[in-house]
């Protein structure tokens, strides 16, 4: 997953670049608004020190059942403590109420949106993000194309929520418009988290003791 443009980025900037609107240089990067993931080692990898607020985070678990949602548990619990809502859009299975409660997510704070198809799911996530009323939106997307992601990224920018999209591993060889792109791999009693792309950050990998819970 190495980026072929890494070398060219290290070259000195041509003088015209600062005059092009929309181009930021590293030292002028705006501070990224973020919420701690609850994992210090992961926070250290992420611009702003946590899950970005108002930007899309793409999570690509190589298989399911490895702690791909448990990774978010601490951030989600804190949002619930602040009386914000957590929205599960189009999850692959039934979100099990006892598990949510043990994870510190009170049931009245959790909304489960079951869309008939991917298009409705993306629409629901987009509306929820735009409205900014939810603390976090978790969308399970079957879409391979990146166009719906672009819309979600814009919707995330309009609101103040944490925005997570789970995508199948087949999407990994395509570019992504998400601000943060993370691939998740199973490890022994741990979850390997590799930051493939972080707008305003460097990326890197870390192994977290995330398992069993949630």
């Amino acid at each position, binding site marked *: 997953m190495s980026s072929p443009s890494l070398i060219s980025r290290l070259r000195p900037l041509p003088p015209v670049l600062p005059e092009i609107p929309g181009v930021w240089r590293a030292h002028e990067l705006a501070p990224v608004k973020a919420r701690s993931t609850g994992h210090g080692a992961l926070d250290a990898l992420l611009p702003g020190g946590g899950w970005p607020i108002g930007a899309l985070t793409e999570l690509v678990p190589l*298989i*399911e059942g490895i702690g791909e949602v448990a990774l978010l548990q601490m951030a989600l619990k804190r949002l619930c403590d602040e009386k914000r809502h957590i929205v599960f859009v189009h999850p692959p299975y039934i979100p*099990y109420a*006892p598990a949510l409660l043990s994870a510190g997510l009170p*049931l009245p704070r959790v909304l489960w949106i079951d*869309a008939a198809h991917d298009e*409705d799911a993306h629409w629901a996530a987009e509306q*929820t993000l735009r409205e900014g009323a939810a603390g976090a939106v978790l969308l399970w997307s079957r879409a391979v194309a990146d166009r719906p992601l672009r819309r979600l990224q814009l919707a995330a920018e309009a609101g103040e929520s944490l925005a997570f999209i789970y995508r199948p591993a087949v999407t990994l060889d395509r570019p992504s418009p998400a601000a943060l792109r993370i691939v998740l791999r199973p490890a022994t009693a741990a979850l390997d988290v590799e930051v493939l792309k972080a707008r305003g950050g460097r990326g890197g990998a870390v192994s977290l003791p995330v398992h069993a819970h949630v």
Partner: protein
Amino acid sequence: MLWLCIVSPVQEKKHALKALASWAGQFSSCVCLDAERSLLWLEIGSSLRYFGGLDRLLEKVTAGLNALALAATTGVAPTAEAAALLARQPQALPVVQLEHLQPAIAALPLNTLALLPAAIAGLQASGIASVGALLALPRDALARRWGLHMTGYLQRLLGERADPRKPYRAPQTYHRRFDFAEPVQTVEGLLFPLRRILYELQGYLRGRDTALQMLNVAFRHRGHADTALTLRTTEPQRDALRLFALLREKLERTQLPGAVTRIRLNVEQFVALRDTQLHLWDESERHDASWSDLLDKLRARLGDQAVRRLGLRDDHRPEKAWCVESAAVAADLPPAFPDRPLWLLPPRPIERLPKLLGRPERIEAGWWSGEDSSRDYYIAQTAEGSRWWLYREAATARWFLQGIWA
């Protein structure tokens, strides 16, 4: 007393005028109507202070009529008949004081008065062309020649005689129907009248200081059963545009079997508007308000059943220990509840058993209802690294996958 008269377009039916009277209840506690003359009166003398003066009130009424897209005109005067007279004069200014009334109407032509055409023709034939000229004539002579009807009218016009009117009482439940002259084929054609009747409803709700959480709309077709839509909102609601947006979303996803000849709108139950709408919200309340708007929007497009809250049930069987809640309930797990996976699956038989971790948890329940189940639950790890929640059914020794630790 100060009267505001609204002249409704003549083609409007009587039930439409009543709907307009219900709408007008938001501006005055005393609304009267005259269906034959297509007139509506609002006593506004007692509402002026509440609305911040006559100019502000008139602005609001005009804006309201514009929102209804109704080509109605208005007039203001200390008597109901004078208000009706001024309402038909496009350039007339409001008259507030009784002593200013006579000079304000003196120059108007005679045929603006609500007199019988024969009387007007007769007066004109004897050289009386203006209201002022008529009012200058001795009343007893007029009464002898044209009857008490005419002098009675003039006295009520000038406020020399009481003019009691029966106030219109808005109904306790709201029913509005809208008939199309020609059947309407497209959704766009329905939206325009739908918006109008929702604005009327908003006025009615404001007048009664109440709100709704459910409304029914039915579209009548020729030769087909009605198409009925029910809109439910999370919070009490009375904003016309918000209701319109939600209905529109529903309507655009509804297959109409044919052209529409009539719209019916019914509201049977009313609820008090939350007083949070009257105050400035703090941050958490603001989130709650936009939260309920969001839920309404999601339900309008995806359906009520697609937007779910979760609840617990008191049952040891994992597949029965949860439920979908329509309303939010607080619930707590028993203390020291064992770990559960985030994803629950309908039990699925498995052939190859993955590596089991730890000791089994015995769950026995359901024997009382004949669904005897005794199961040993295990956490398992697949070769690929997934964590599964499995059980072995004691009776058959078969293995099932029921959960995934995500």
